């Protein structure tokens, strides 16, 4: 059959009555399906728009509250009243910042606004603490609040403008990629770019090995005190890598980069080992000054068989540290995952545990090999401290703890604060309602500095 005939045949068939109905029904079905899809998409878009609107209006409300609270705090006369105002400003600024992060606007456009809100919150938090200690605001702090208030007024104004346009329907969230970015850009540009205060108290708390994480975030911003020794070149530092793993185990060490920025300058190496597959390598960063290992990760499959237990791993880790020149380190807390133990070691000066000087060692429990090492805390903070005589006795400190807690053990500890400083404390371990707690009492003024809940999970001991 030629094509012409085929077409004619098709035409003939199509003109058949039956065929008509089939085609019409098929078209109707497709149209129905298309309409359903369109409506579905429109519903979803609407739902999303509603979420964005909710986040935006909430944020505007919170920013307005922050502005009002800041000005109120200037006229609060008693420290107690100021504390209440500051606490509320802290809360409202946080809520504003959370909602800001949900808007469909590129994060780099919002960066300054977000930073401003966080800093208002942080400042309010620290002033709240100061006020609760009975201390009022000083002249400098008044000035700072006045300045922040000025910024919050201009933020409020530009947000109110945006709000008017949004509710008039002149901006849609879908179009914000073009139009709104410019609007937000302008808002954000008006925000201060300088750092006021850097006390990030308010980020999410998740359970961590003791005194790690929440306290460690500002480490990179201060000059490290635990780095001693001469500056090394790439080859000298390479030697240190060999020594770290053991000359007999290492097949090759290859330099893969260097970091010359920041307070801790490093060389990076990739390490191949004898008698293991080629692609199973370790990565290690070594400080240019002193040639200390900053961190090491060796990713290898760990067998399911537990050949050594956590206690043996703890002493293996300690021996490893001693062999590499880290003396007087004691294990504090640990975590066990995938048949691997991660053990925290803190420096002990005399009878005082110094938590900021932290080294983490990862040990594979199938053969006791060190598969990870992290010493940022130690390198940043370590030094011999002049520890003062405690001004209150152990008994006095103990009397300050709630009698409901059953104290099991006690000792001295230096703990880090949110303010980049350290405090000399008594550490009490105790039980309340079947839960384990650590309570820290300032050894100089008896203030209850911190309370940690110990979470004895199947995988290890965490604090919260």
């Amino acid at each position, binding site marked *: 059959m030629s094509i012409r005939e085929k077409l004619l045949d098709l035409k003939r068939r199509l003109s058949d009555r*039956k065929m008509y*109905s*089939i085609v019409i*029904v*098929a078209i109707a*079905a*497709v149209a*129905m*399906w298309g309409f*359903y*899809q369109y409506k*579905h998409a429109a519903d979803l878009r609407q739902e999303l728009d509603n979420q964005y609107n909710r986040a935006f209006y909430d944020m505007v409300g919170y920013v307005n509250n922050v502005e009002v609270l800041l000005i109120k705090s200037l006229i609060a006369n008693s420290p107690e009243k100021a504390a209440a105002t500051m606490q509320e400003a802290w809360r409202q600024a*946080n809520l504003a*910042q*959370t909602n800001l*992060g*949900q808007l*469909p*606007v*590129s*994060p*780099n456009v919002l*960066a300054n606004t*977000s*930073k401003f809100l*966080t800093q208002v919150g*942080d400042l309010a938090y620290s002033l709240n603490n100061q006020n609760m200690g009975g201390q009022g605001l000083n002249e400098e702090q008044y000035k700072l609040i006045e300045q922040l208030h000025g910024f919050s007024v201009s933020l409020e104004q530009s947000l109110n403008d945006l709000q008017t346009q949004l509710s008039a329907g002149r901006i849609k969230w879908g179009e914000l990629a073009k139009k709104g970015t410019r609007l937000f850009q302008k808002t954000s540009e008006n925000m201060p770019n300088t750092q006021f205060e850097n006390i*990030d108290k308010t*980020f*999410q708390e*998740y*359970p961590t*090995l003791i005194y*790690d994480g929440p306290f*460690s*975030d500002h480490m*990179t911003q201060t000059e490290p005190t635990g780095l001693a020794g001469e500056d090394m070149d790439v080859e000298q530092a390479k030697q240190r890598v060999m020594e770290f793993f053991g000359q007999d185990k290492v097949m090759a060490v290859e330099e893969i*980069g260097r*970091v010359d*920025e*920041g307070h*801790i300058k*490093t060389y990076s190496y990739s390490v191949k080992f004898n008698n293991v597959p080629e692609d199973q390598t370790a*990565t290690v*960063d070594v400080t240019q000054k002193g040639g200390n290992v900053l*961190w090491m*990760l060796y*990713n290898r499959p760990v067998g399911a068989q537990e050949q050594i237990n956590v206690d043996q791993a703890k002493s293996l880790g300690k021996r490893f540290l001693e062999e590499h020149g880290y003396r007087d380190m004691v294990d504090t807390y640990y*975590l066990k*995952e*995938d048949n691997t133990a*991660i053990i925290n070691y803190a420096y002990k000066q005399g009878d005082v545990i110094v938590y900021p000087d932290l080294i*983490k060692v990862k040990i594979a429990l199938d053969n006791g090999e060190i598969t*990870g090492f*992290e010493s*940022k805390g130690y390198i940043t903070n370590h030094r011999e401290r002049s520890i003062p005589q405690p001004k209150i006795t152990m008994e006095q400190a103990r009397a300050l703890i709630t009698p409901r807690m059953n104290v099991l053990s006690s000792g001295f500890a230096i703990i880090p604060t949110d303010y980049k400083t350290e405090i000399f404390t008594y550490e009490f371990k105790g039980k309340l309602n079947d839960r384990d707690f650590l309570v820290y009492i300032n050894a100089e003024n008896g203030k209850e500095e911190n309370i940690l809940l110990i*979470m004895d*999970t*199947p995988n290890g001991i*965490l604090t919260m």
Partner: protein
Amino acid sequence: MKTVKRIIILVVIFSISIPLFLNSSVFIAPITGKLAPDMESDDVKKMQQRLKNWNYYDGEISGKYDFKTYFAVRDFQNTYKLPVSGIANEDTLAAMGLTTLAKWGEVYAQSNQSSNEQLLASAINGEARGEPYEGQVAVGAVILNRTRDPKFPKTVAGVIYQPGAFTAVSDGQINVPIDPNSTVVKAARDALNGWDPTNGCLYYWNPATATSKWIWSRQIVKKIGKHYFGK
């Protein structure tokens, strides 16, 4: 007319079922194994804790499947109309909402840490599953560094789901199931435990595919695998 009807029915069924197929279903892995007297494990501990919470058990949370535990399990089975055997089989464990935990992919939400761990692992999986191990840890570390920086949201979920922040979130790559042999879960744990190969970086980008001009204004600190890391 019969064929016409058939076709109509087919078309209608087809058009109705498409949206159904498009819905991805959530798969929950079945529970494996059972707990029996004389066993001693962390799972027994978890079971004892639940039984104690619900007043079936008043002994120590020892991890040992002893007589007290045995009778507690019987009591529990009795209440829930399960075959009373004193052995915590799959049905019993399921009734307690317990699975043999520990394995990835099974339902477990013991603490905030493990939910962060799962979310972080999914994000790393979407963004960097083809990268070398330290590159995966580095991506996790960048996300955690952001939670500590005032310019970004303060929670892991806030940072990951911030609109426009990560391509893997925008295009749904974050929901790609994690390969059981993948190292992303391990990488997420290392990042949560404080390993940071980037030395505090807040951004990373792939120089081959980065579309934003702005990102090139960042200072490059390090290159790991295909990604540049910067502040």
